[in-house]
């Protein structure tokens, strides 16, 4: 079963705007990761946030984690056309750190 579910499924914005994607999960986690996938390509790791962290930044990316609500959000600021891709959250649970469970993804389109 899917551990993470992203919302929205698809998002279309203008270049320069911010994009926010959300992820909800069901069970306790060790950490949560966000990945990006360009069409027809492999996934690329973006950022990892541990269960004891609430917010993390990396360049134009900001990730938040609310373990009480079992949810996370990924914010991309000042978006660019090159940010067009699918974005996935992935969780690994305590005791199974070798395995990641991926959500179904958000397709982000940034219009020039």
């Amino acid at each position, binding site marked *: 079963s899917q551990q993470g579910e992203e919302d929205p499924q698809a998002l279309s914005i203008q270049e320069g705007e911010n994009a926010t994607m959300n992820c909800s999960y069901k069970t306790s986690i060790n950490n949560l990761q966000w990945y990006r996938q360009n069409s027809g390509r492999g*996934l690329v790791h973006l950022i*990892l946030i541990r269960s004891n962290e609430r917010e993390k930044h990396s360049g134009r990316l900001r990730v938040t984690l609310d373990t009480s609500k079992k949810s996370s959000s990924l914010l991309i600021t000042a978006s660019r056309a090159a940010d067009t891709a699918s974005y996935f959250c992935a969780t690994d649970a305590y005791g199974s750190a070798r395995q990641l469970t991926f959500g179904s*993804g958000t397709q982000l389109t940034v219009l020039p």
Partner: protein
Amino acid sequence: SQTIHQWPATLVQPVGSPLSLECTVEGTSNPNLYWYRQAAGRGLQLLFYSVGIGQISSEVPQNLSASRPQDRQFILSSKKLLLSDSGFYLCAWSCLAVTYEQYFGPGTRLTVT
């Protein structure tokens, strides 16, 4: 630096034919290795993972099998393909001693006709 290779990039196979997809990792030792399948517009489903040579764990019952004959080689196989085996297959590696991140190969697009 570490790199991961997958081949072939695309494959069209008839129903009932065998399958062999190969994944190799360079620049690291004793990685954890993973095979995922991605249906169109969907997330990734973990099929197999391996923590060492000859050690394979299967996540879902299916028509596929995996083997790890060498430390940095991971093979996905089938004796007889089904239409439902079509999809995008991704190999990934991780080094849990360092990080929980996984690093993905470029993928193989399999179409079973």
